[in-house]
Structures are given as structure tokens and as C-alpha cells.
């Protein structure tokens, strides 16, 4: 067996080790390379910036703990921005397994920004029905969520004053890790109830949402950890996403090097096999 063939059959644990080191080392010794802001992330930031005080901002945290590393920093940055702008925040989730996590992030950021539940923000929690919840909220918000996550009746909450349904929402952002997520909010929400919408998603999902972005169906997109890092820079509050970008840089580079090496070994062993074939003939 040639060197190239041996390298093509390398023990996968060596690759795991390389990736492990590439993740760990930059986290321990951060470099802090500059991060360029993409137009799709700036779209979300600019729209929130343009909203007047007291506007209604709906944040749907449609993900579970599996996508926490990418979507949690996005949620934190968006909430910080919305609270800083004194927007009225309505938070909720369409994923039952993400309810506790969503409650924690909303409560944590609200406390940090000195905001009061029921007055400045409300966490509605989860309601069964998936996409039907969006339509139900579009028809009657109080029918879909008669009480908030803490059991307080939603009717009469100061933060929801003047809000009857989704038509009264000024801006909605769905941080989605699958279905129901950003697409469902467009199809069942924005299309009928005419509010402005943006999306946040995991890195692997982002390419699938570009058609919605290009056609203006969503006005911005925060994609993966990179998008979260860009948003942290925009609001000038660096957090876990910016810290994780060095690790992501290193792992991306490691994968690129591995792919190039694998192709070099592949062509080398193929050429050798061809030469041997010709010599044999």
C-alpha cells in the first residue's frame, strides 16, 4: 500500500483530534480577527433601529437545545437591541422542547436591561398546533395565548395594550432551527397579516432561506454563529458568538486543508494505479 493510499484510509480518530484541537485552542487563546458585517444581518439591525419607541417586536424562538450554540447568541443580541430601543417585546416559541430555554434567555436579558414582565415584555410560552398557532395569533392573539408562560391572563397586560392580532406587530423575527420556523412565519404569518419579518437560523439552514431574502419575503437573515457575531458587533456588545468565531475559523480551515489533502492523495493514488495498469498492459 502506497503512502497516499494509507493516508486515504487514515484512522478517523486522528481527524476527530484535529477538529477537537482546532475548536479548543482558539477558545483558549482567542485571536480576535475582524468580522465583516453582511447586508442581510445589517438589514435586521437597521430595521430595528428605525422602529420608534413602543413599537411591537415579536421574537419567536423556534429552536431546541440542539441549536443553542448558534441561536442563543442571536436571541440575546436581538433582545438586547430591542430592549435598548424600548420596544414592546412579545416572545414565544413554536417548539415545545425549547420552552424552558426560551424563558430563561428572555428573563435573563430582560433582567439585565432592567425590564419588567407584563409591562415591557411578555413571554407567551408554547401552544400546541405548530403552524396553526401562527394563524390563530393572526386572527386573535388572546385566543392563541389566553395566558402567558407564568399563567397571567394576557388580556389586560400593559405590554399588549392595543394589540389584537399579528396585524398589530411592527416587526417579527423567527429564530428557527427547522419546521415550524422562518418559512412557516412567512407562509402563515407575514403573507396574510402583513407585518415585516426577518429570520435567524443555523448555519446549515441559511442557504435554504436566501430565496426568501432575495425576493424581499424576509428583510434580513442572521445565519448561524457568524450572523450572531455580526449582530453582537453591530450592537457593540461582544459575546459568545464573537468568541466562537476564531474556533469556527480554525475548524473551517482544518476541513478545507483535509479536503485538499484527501484530493491530493486521491489523484496521486489514481495516477499510480493508471501507470501500473499501462505497465501491466
Amino acid at each position, binding site marked *: 500500500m502506497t503512502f497516499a493510499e494509507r493516508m486515504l484510509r487514515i484512522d478517523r480518530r486522528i481527524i476527530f483530534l484535529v477538529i477537537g484541537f482546532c475548536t479548543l485552542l482558539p477558545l483558549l487563546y482567542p485571536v480576535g480577527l475582524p468580522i465583516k458585517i453582511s447586508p442581510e444581518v445589517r438589514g435586521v439591525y437597521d430595521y430595528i433601529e428605525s422602529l420608534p419607541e413602543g413599537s411591537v417586536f415579536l421574537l419567536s424562538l423556534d429552536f431546541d437545545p*440542539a441549536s443553542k450554540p448558534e441561536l442563543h447568541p442571536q436571541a440575546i443580541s436581538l433582545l438586547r437591541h430591542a430592549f435598548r430601543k424600548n420596544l414592546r417585546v412579545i416572545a414565544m416559541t413554536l417548539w415545545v422542547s425549547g420552552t424552558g430555554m426560551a424563558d430563561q434567555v428572555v428573563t435573563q436579558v430582560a433582567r439585565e436591561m432592567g425590564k419588567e414582565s407584563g409591562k415591557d415584555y411578555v413571554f407567551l410560552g408554547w401552544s*400546541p398546533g405548530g403552524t396553526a398557532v401562527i394563524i*390563530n395569533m393572526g*386572527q386573535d392573539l388572546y385566543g392563541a395565548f389566553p395566558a402567558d408562560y407564568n399563567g397571567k391572563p394576557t388580556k389586560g397586560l400593559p405590554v399588549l395594550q392595543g394589540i389584537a392580532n399579528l396585524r398589530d406587530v411592527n416587526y417579527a423575527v423567527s429564530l428557527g432551527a427547522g419546521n415550524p420556523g422562518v418559512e412557516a412565519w412567512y407562509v402563515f404569518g407575514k403573507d396574510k397579516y402583513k407585518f415585516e419579518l426577518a429570520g435567524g437560523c443555523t448555519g446549515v439552514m441559511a442557504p435554504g432561506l436566501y430565496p426568501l431574502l432575495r425576493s424581499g419575503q424576509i428583510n434580513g437573515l442572521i445565519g448561524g454563529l457568524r450572523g450572531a457575531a455580526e449582530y453582537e458587533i453591530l450592537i457593540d456588545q461582544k459575546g459568545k458568538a464573537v468568541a466562537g468565531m476564531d474556533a469556527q*475559523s480554525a475548524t*473551517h*480551515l482544518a476541513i478545507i486543508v483535509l*479536503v485538499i489533502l484527501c484530493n491530493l492523495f486521491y489523484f496521486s493514488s489514481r495516477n499510480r494505479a493508471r501507470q501500473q495498469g499501462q505497465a501491466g498492459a
Partner: protein
Amino acid sequence: MIFLRRQVPLLITLITGIVFAAQYYVPHPASEQMLTSVTKWLQIIGGFALVLGVSSLFHVHAIKIRRKEAGWGYSFVLYVSMLGTIAVGLWSNGKEAVDGTMTAFGWIYNFMMVPLQGTMFAILAFFIASAAYRSFRARSREAAVLLIAAVIVMMGRVPLGEYLIPLSGDLSQWILNVLNASVRRAILIGVSLGTVALSIKIIFGMERSYLGGGKE
């Protein structure tokens, strides 16, 4: 019995399908009120579906344990975890925290479910790297194009890539915004047309597989 099992569901599908397809284009208050009522039904049905899903899961794994099928131990773990979580959840009134103090249910969520799901997702990075090394080879022209595009996007999506090759950021944006978006849109339109065709077939009773294959 056939009337109840076949004709009635087909009739309900036909009527609701036509009525609610038309409802979208009728902004009359009565039409909106009808939609409001029906979406409430949908939410209630969604709640029942959850109960049905859980009971079905219990049933499937109970059979596995009873017959001692291969991997029945995992089913047993699932049973114990699920029953335990349900009991603790009911005891904690479904709350992860009360007045800032974590409940037992919150403990299970924060210290078991969150790290377990996070770990499952995190190990993907290792498998992707290993799979990329083993199979991402330029065996054909199409594979070579895919390979080059992937490398550019991977470079352009991280600060180090943009630092080493400044053009990679713009190139990656162009690939995502133009090539990727147009191809995805074509697929999306195809899928949507297929969905419309399937919906019409279901509404008019030409597609009946959703009724199940029970005895007639």
C-alpha cells in the same frame, strides 16, 4: 361502516378543502370568524395529536420490551426516562423555575436535556470533517465544481478566510445570493407546484392514502 370510514372523511376533506382555499380570498368578517374558530380547533387537535404520539411511543416500546427484541434495553431506558420526566413535570406543575428557584423539572431540562441535545449536535462537526475527508473528492467535473464552491463558501463565511483571501467574502456572498438562491427558488417552485397538485388530488378524493389501508 364503509360509509363512515371512507365516504364521510372524503366528504369532510372535500368541503373543508374547498371552503378554506376560498376563505383566503374572502376578507369578510364572517369568513375571518370562521377561520378563527377553525384554527382554535386545529390547536385542540394538535394537543390531542401530542397525546396520541406519546401513547403510540409507549405502545411501540412496550412491545419491544415484552418481546425482548434487539435493543430492548434502550426502550426500557426510554420508558423510565419518559415516565420519570412526566411524573416530575406534573409534580413541578410544568415549570422549570418558580420565583427564580429551579424546580426538579428544570433540573432535568437544564442538566440532562440541554447538554444531551447539545452534545448530539456538536459531534456532527467531527463526523462532517471525517466524511468530508473520506468522500469529498473531485471524481467528476460536477464534483469538482461542488468542491470549489464549498471551499469558497467555507472560506468566505469565517473571518480567517476573509483575512487570508479578502475576495472570498464577496465571492461567497455571490454564490449564496445568486447561484444558490436561484437554484433553491427553482426547487421551491417545483415543490410548491407538486404540493398544489397533491392538495387538489386529496381534496377531490383522487389521493386516498391518508385514509389508511384498513379493511373495507
